[in-house]
């Protein structure tokens, strides 16, 4: 385990803040959906917070990420504004994509988030191409490609990993193994070894506890620094868990995973509780401080929701704008 010192306190508190923000964001999004205030469908990131935050805290805002259908966590972690995010989820004009993208296409160019993607694995090429650009222009930006265990089924990933390896591109493939793709366990979808799939291309791989912010972040800091120096690409499997169903409507889940399993992860392996424990046990924060912290974030999220609910929809004239740029 990484040795933490008091120097790490601000970093840990910031991470705590970000993880709680994601959780609050999702709880609100879920509520909006269940009360029929949010259109479409959406996929909750709750439970996986340490992955997005652990990695994104190792990145600069000029570094890039690509995200997935389960992308709210990546978006928050990369620095997005909650109001603009909720506006997007509700299809409002002020949203990051003027309401045109919604939950599955939210992007935040200002912070280097190249966007969520509704095609599983669909962003692997985009991430690798962003890394190609860094190399071509001699920039030291790093790109992180987030994707789920299910995306290991997409051939595109192997094509671009091969090129990333051939050309030593500064890209980190972050496989969030929450053990399920929709309603199917990873063992039924992925033969052999997850990490060997990248090692085959000569890519250095790592596997880390995705619930442990400290571990994820330590590894990310190291790999990001090395990728900046041209030592990439890298591949990480982050073992994690999604608390909710595959999407908001996936309520009866016992046919594919047990209530006990869910309970175990929520109580024993919760990334926010685990980080709180680090902070409290080291006496770097009191539980009360953390609770106050959380309350403030709760309020911030609630405010963002009301703001978004009141915000105007785009004008009908926007419907055929932005098909082409001039």
């Amino acid at each position, binding site marked *: 385990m990484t040795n933490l010192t008091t120097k790490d306190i601000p970093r840990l508190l910031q991470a705590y803040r970000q993880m709680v923000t994601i959780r609050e964001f999702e709880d609100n999004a879920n509520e909006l959906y269940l009360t029929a205030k949010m*259109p*479409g*469908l959406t996929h909750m990131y709750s439970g996986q917070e340490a992955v997005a935050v652990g990695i994104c805290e190792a990145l600069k805002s000029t570094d890039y990420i690509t995200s997935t259908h389960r992308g709210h966590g990546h978006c928050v972690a990369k620095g997005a504004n909650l109001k603009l995010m909720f506006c997007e989820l509700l*299809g*409002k004009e002020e949203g990051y*994509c*003027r*309401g*045109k*993208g*919604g*939950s*599955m*296409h939210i992007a935040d160019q200002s912070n280097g988030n190249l966007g969520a*993607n*509704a*095609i*599983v*694995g*669909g962003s692997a090429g985009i991430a690798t191409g962003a890394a190609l650009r860094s190399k071509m222009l001699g920039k030291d930006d790093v790109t992180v490609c987030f994707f789920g265990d*299910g*995306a*290991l*089924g*997409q*051939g595109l990933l192997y094509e671009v990993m091969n090129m990333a390896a051939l050309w030593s591109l500064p890209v980190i493939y972050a496989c969030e193994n929450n053990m399920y*793709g*929709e*309603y*199917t366990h990873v063992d*039924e*979808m*992925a033969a052999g070894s997850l990490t060997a799939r990248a090692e085959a291309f000569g890519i250095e791989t790592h596997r880390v506890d995705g619930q442990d912010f400290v571990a994820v972040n330590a590894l990310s800091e190291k790999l990001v620094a090395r990728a900046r120096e041209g030592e990439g690409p890298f591949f990480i499997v982050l073992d994690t868990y999604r608390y909710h169903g595959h999407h908001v409507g996936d309520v009866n889940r016992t*046919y*594919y995973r047990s209530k006990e399993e869910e309970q175990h992860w929520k109580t024993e392996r919760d990334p926010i509780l685990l980080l709180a424990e680090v902070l409290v046990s080291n006496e770097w924060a009191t539980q009360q401080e953390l609770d106050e912290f959380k309350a403030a974030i709760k309020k911030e999220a609630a405010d963002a929701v009301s703001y978004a609910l009141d915000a105007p*929809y*785009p004008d*009908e004239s*926007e*419907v*055929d704008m932005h*098909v082409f740029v001039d």
Partner: protein
Amino acid sequence: MRNITWSQAMNEAIAEEMRHDETVFIMGEDVAEAGTPFKVTSGLVEEFGTQRVLDTPISEPGFMGMAVGASLTGMRPIVDLMFGDFIYLIMDQLANQAAKQHYMSGGKLTVPLVVRTNMGATRRSAAQHSQSLQALVAHIPGIKVAMPSTPYEVKGLMKTAIRDNNPVVIFEDKLSYQMKGPVPEEEYFIPFGQANVISQGTDITLIGTSSMVQVCEEAALILAEKGISAEVIDVRTIAPLDEHTLVESVKKTGRAIVVDEGHQSFGVTSEIVARLNEQAFYYLDAPLTRMGAMDVPIPFSPALEDLTVPTAAGVADKAVKLVTGER
């Protein structure tokens, strides 16, 4: 006649054909225990087992290719493609491999497979989960394309598709899964290439595919109130296309509006209009008119999405103009 949902009708079609022929099987993501996210295949795995109701990894090009290989060697696979938007991913296997095998082999190889997938917007599913890509598939020689509009049709066309010895893609409107309608208990098949004249009329022909048939029917009701008599035709399969029925109708009415939910440009409506123009030109009283989805990626926002799809009011409006000669 009993009323059942679209999903049940599709489910029955698959189950009956699997009982009838042991070479029929279905493969796709979460088709087994989960019964697909839309719960269309529920119960099949219990009856037929996991060998014939096959959950795949998220590998559309891969399992589409496997379906081609299985069908070349004697099976009759049904490929369940969760969203029509993923057609782009299987295009090479569908168009370069499946569609051309019979021709390239001089008639020696056959590829009896079905891709069941969907289409249709207005579910707030945004640009990558809302497309209606039937025109792309219909452009490729060697593939048949069915577009049912009711539970009755989806069952009859699906059974025909499974027995067909060619690759067939069947597009279901995502909004239809819960639609109920009369479906006979007895076995039946709906032949390909035969459009269905739903209601007779004299002033204008409204030609629709899939859920746009309902849009045409509703438009006909609006028009009836205004004293305009519309003939409504359900195309049922766009490849083969029942040119004859469409042409005869338009020769009679002298006017037509073609409605389809794919993008308008280079779409299904273009083809039908082009054929009607060629075959019924000398009978036309007004320009042939078409309404597809707007030529924009489907927007997420509820304030925008509905604007992109043809509506009954819009169709009726155009029809009135065509009939009254207003431009």
